[in-house]
């Protein structure tokens, strides 16, 4: 590896990139030249979205994390230009991102606000009115130590993260206090993204084994509840282990369990 050579981004898709690598972008034919939109949200056709692990620099994109470079074509009338680039990297520490659904643990109940530990550098705040059907008289029943599934409405590096348990139309949509039983455990962030991908085989195979309820938090936390404690522990162990298992090993492990 010589001094970082700048290569076109398309050539490096699917390869390992290291911090300091510069990726060149094709010149865009628009009148305002090459512009990069940083952040979540749909990219306008013709605009390139610069995702996690990448920063824009003068020549193109600067890689800031190690991982595999990925690319997604823009949906609809995007044509050749546009789409999104990001780096699939592995980490265990969560950094709050707006719009992410996470599982938080209530640590402080102070007047109108709950403080939640979401695994980041700061605790998130949650107002008591941010629950479905909550009014000043009808307060939600939340105690210290409860698990809450919610999403971030404010999450940036300069401000304290804020969560809510309702969506934009005021409905809970699955968010709110998670029941008192079940088991909460932590896995790496990459595994969560893998499990949340559509048509994930791991969840489908586990579902055929035992019926269970499961909640995934993008902060690496998973809550599982099955009919008995033993089944809950089995599901939790399989999920923790499947980060390091190949598909065949997983099928073997599940076959052994379903024999019992």
């Amino acid at each position, binding site marked *: 590896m010589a001094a970082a050579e700048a290569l076109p981004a398309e050539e490096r898709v699917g390869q390992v990139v290291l*911090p300091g690598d510069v990726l060149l972008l094709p010149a865009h034919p628009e009148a305002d030249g090459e512009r990069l939109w940083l952040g979540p949200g749909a990219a306008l056709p013709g605009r390139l979205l610069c995702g*996690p*692990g990448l*920063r824009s620099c003068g020549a193109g994109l*600067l890689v800031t994390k190690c991982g595999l470079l990925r690319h997604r074509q823009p949906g609809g009338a995007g044509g050749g230009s546009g789409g999104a680039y*990001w780096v699939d990297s592995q980490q*265990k520490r969560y950094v709050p991102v707006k719009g992410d659904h996470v599982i938080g643990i209530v640590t402080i109940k102070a007047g109108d606000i709950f403080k939640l530990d979401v695994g980041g550098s700061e605790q998130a705040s949650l107002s008591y009115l941010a629950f479905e059907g909550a009014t000043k008289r009808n307060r939600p029943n939340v105690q210290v130590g409860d698990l809450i599934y919610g999403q971030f409405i404010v999450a940036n590096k300069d401000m304290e993260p804020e969560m809510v348990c309702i969506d934009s139309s005021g409905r809970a*949509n699955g968010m709110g206090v998670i029941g008192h039983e079940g088991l909460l455990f932590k896995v790496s962030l*990459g595994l969560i993204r893998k499990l949340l991908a559509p048509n994930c085989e791991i969840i489908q195979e586990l579902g055929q084994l035992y019926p269970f309820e499961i909640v995934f938090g993008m902060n690496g936390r998973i809550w599982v509840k099955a009919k008995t404690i033993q089944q809950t522990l089995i599901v939790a162990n399989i999920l923790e282990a499947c980060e390091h298992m190949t598909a065949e090993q997983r099928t073997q492990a599940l076959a052994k369990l379903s024999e019992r």
Partner: protein
Amino acid sequence: MGRGRAPRFPCLGGGRVLPRSSLPAGDTSVLAGLYGPAEVKVSKEMYDKATVEVLLRPKVGLPGVFEKNREQLIRKTCEAVLLGALHPRTSITIVLQVVSDAGSLLACCLNAACMGLMDAGLPMKSLFCGVTCALDATGAIGLDPTAKQEKEARAVLTFAISSVERQVLLSTTKGPCSVEEEQLGLWGGQARYRRRVRQETGGGRVPWRQGEGNPWGMGVPS
């Protein structure tokens, strides 16, 4: 010269320490643990960037002034490559434990710190690598000296070299040497850098767990 120097392996940000391979006798090895971005005490927090803290623990005994000096050198190097502005008011702690010392300790600590930062997924501008040069009485330069060679050398120079155009991030000298000798040592170090990075990253391939799915737009339960 030319011995396999194995920087020890790092932890994942969040607190696990994971030594990945066993240790051949006689080599220098340092275990690195990385925690961050995590909460920081109000007295230490910086409003515009992350607070980087390095703790270097010797193999035996309590850490002293020598370790404090090394900690500051490693801290300045890591601060130079980390994009601390992305995580203001947080702390990033690097804990280095010396497992065995057979010479070139500072370079090994720098390598371990870099591997730790990479493994934890912290945003960086570039990678860096540590190289030690020893100048003996005749002026000959040897790279990666053993402890014995370091003691007999007239001067020992340590450099941290960045992956972006092999810029020098850190240069520290123990013992007298002229400017020309220091330059020669630096060029030797930069040449060794190429080989070192190839060794550490397995020829450009980082051992990786491949995850599928992308971070946004997909899989968020509704």
